[in-house]
């Protein structure tokens, strides 16, 4: 038991290291903003470690040191310099440095060269709009695609309560506040999928309010955006055509839009190109016919408390038809 105890302490002490993985991690920057934050993190960590070391040395000296050293430590001059002047100067300096480092990423509306993406936090998903020079914006949800190497300006809003937008691999965390627009500039320097998470408790399934930023090469991104701009294609197969009929008759269009059909609902996510997204219900179910069907009928079990009622009115073959239609919206 006495031999096991140090191992246990070590295991407990090491457990925060689990947060240092590559996924959704501040310590694994994928862009300049995140890199600056990571550097700031290491600087603060190093500085804190140095101060801790000095404090430990001083404590040892205060107990074991010679009479002269102890007198020196207890003198009014030491207390004034090390206890008042040093912390004031050091903390002010670090704060100034932190603000200076992050100033660029939260500065207001940027210039025309930036890609603008409007993200609205809603209970409990992300409404994402790519504004167009003409016509309505391209609406997607929960999955944000960006090109690498180009600065992106996020306009962050909230539709209900305070949410917070945070993609740790790409940059800092910015609150989405009802009635205000906040801004965040990010750039991804390498391709990859970077997970984000609502970082302000927003009720019910807040913990499941995640998002993914997919950084792609500029050409891939342009192709993707071009595809998203198009209305939904007509279904190829009979089952999917039947699915579309059921989708409209069952009232799905009251909350969801599928551009190119009568479905124009604004309450829930736009489904025009649902089949091209990586997951359904934010990161909970893979975008497959089975996954979509499962979410339609059992969404309240997958993401408890979400605003979509469970639709268990369909016969199995009808549910499969609706799922086939939606999965085919690529």
């Amino acid at each position, binding site marked *: 038991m006495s031999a096991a105890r140090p191992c246990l302490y070590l295991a407990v002490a090491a457990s925060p290291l689990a947060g240092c993985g590559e996924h959704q991690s501040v310590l694994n920057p994928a862009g300049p903003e995140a890199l600056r934050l990571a550097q700031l993190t290491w600087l603060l960590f190093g500085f804190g470690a140095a101060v801790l070391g000095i404090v430990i040395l001083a404590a040892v000296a205060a107990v074991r040191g010679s009479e002269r050293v102890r007198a020196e430590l207890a003198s009014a001059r030491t207390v004034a310099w090390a206890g008042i002047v040093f912390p004031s100067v050091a903390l002010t300096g670090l704060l100034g440095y932190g603000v200076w480092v992050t100033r660029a990423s939260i500065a207001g509306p940027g210039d025309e060269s930036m890609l603008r993406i409007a993200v609205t936090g809603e209970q409990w998903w992300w409404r994402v709009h790519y504004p167009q020079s003409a016509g309505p914006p391209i609406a997607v949800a929960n999955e944000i695609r960006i090109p690498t190497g180009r600065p992106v300006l996020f306009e962050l809003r909230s539709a209900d309560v305070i949410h917070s937008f945070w993609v740790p691999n790409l940059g800092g965390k910015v609150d989405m506040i009802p009635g205000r627009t906040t801004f965040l500039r990010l750039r991804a320097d390498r391709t990859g999928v970077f997970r984000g998470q609502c970082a302000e408790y927003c009720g019910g399934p807040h913990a499941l309010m995640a998002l993914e930023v997919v950084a792609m090469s500029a050409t891939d991104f342009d192709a993707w955006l071009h595809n998203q701009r198009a209305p939904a294609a007509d279904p190829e197969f009979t089952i999917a055509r039947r699915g579309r009929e*059921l989708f*409209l*008759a*069952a*009232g799905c*269009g*009251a*909350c969801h839009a599928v551009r190119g059909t009568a479905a124009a*609902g*604004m*309450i829930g996510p736009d489904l025009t190109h649902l089949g091209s997204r990586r997951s359904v219900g934010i990161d909970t179910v893979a975008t497959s016919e089975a996954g979509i069907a499962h979410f339609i009928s059992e969404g309240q079990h997958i993401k408890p408390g979400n*605003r979509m*009622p*469970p*639709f*268990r*009115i369909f016969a199995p073959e009808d549910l499969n038809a609706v799922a086939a239609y939606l999965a085919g919206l690529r």
Partner: protein
Amino acid sequence: MRSEMSKRWPRRPARIAGWLLSGVGGLAAALFLFAWSGIYNVAASSGHWTIVDWFLAFGMRNSVSLRSNAITAPALDDPDLIRLGAAHFHGGCAFCHGAPGIPVSPIARQMLPSPPDLATSMRPWKDEELFWIVRHGIKYTGMPGWVALERADEIWAVIAFLKRLPALDAKNYRALALGDVELVGQSGEELATVESNPQGAGACARCHGAEGSGPASDLVPILHGQPTEFLMAALREYAEGSRPSGIMQPLAADLGVQDIERLAAYYANLVPKQAPSTAGTRPSERGRALATEGDPANGIPACNACHGRDSLARYPRLAGQNAAYMAGQLRLWAAGHHSSTSGAAIMAPIARRLSETDIAAAAYFEALASESAGARR
């Protein structure tokens, strides 16, 4: 002296407890022996001793009075509420309690206690007490509780009728409880071979109307021209108890699979009936907006998306429906009324987002021209 007392004191409570315990034990043993021996006569035909009768009635009155204390009766003079209550009374209560022109069944009369004939001798209960009795029933009397305890709205309809009952003669009672239903006299052969339906107790038309006539009360939905699939689903849900209603559950539970199909097809194919719209009221702008566009900012989808002409046959049509009925259903959902049907799973969360103004705006549908969905499918 004092020391003697203190010596005896600790022993006294112990001795008293001992006596009490053996007394209680002896009594329990005597009671058990009494029941075990079979000496007690459980015959309903023999009645109670007067003293027992008085004691039981005394206990019942006090229990009902105490337990109904926290209840407050709503307004009970709405003629539609009274008609709904009358129609249920006719099918659910008259067998045991009689009605003007309908004597208590001889079988029910042999119960102990024999159920009071409410047409002639109803105890002067308060409304709240009657509500409590109808809701919970009374132990040892054969009076059952309400099938769906949560449907206070239905129970109050019965109470509204009971208040009215003493003043009714046979003719007025029939008009109130049977509405436009004409009881067809059965031939001798039919009487002999077909399960008869005494006094039309199970007739759907008493509440819902039939060909040529609409519902008797605006608290009752118009079924004429609704989609067959929707009507069948509703009857099945009542029958299996997933849709709570003390009025509909017992009736639907009596229907076989084919009865449900035939009944649904009958109403689906009737010419749609229009709710007798309250004259002079114009449909509200809010109602029109909710029906056609919804209120996206508040998470309310457009009603017409599911209740329109081309919607699934699984959904009811609302055009021309009774506004009071629709508002009542929405309020039940908004109040968190528990229903485990697949339809309620969709509608209840939406109803909870509606304000009282929004619910009142459902009257918009009442004024719309109804059209048959049943015949089209």
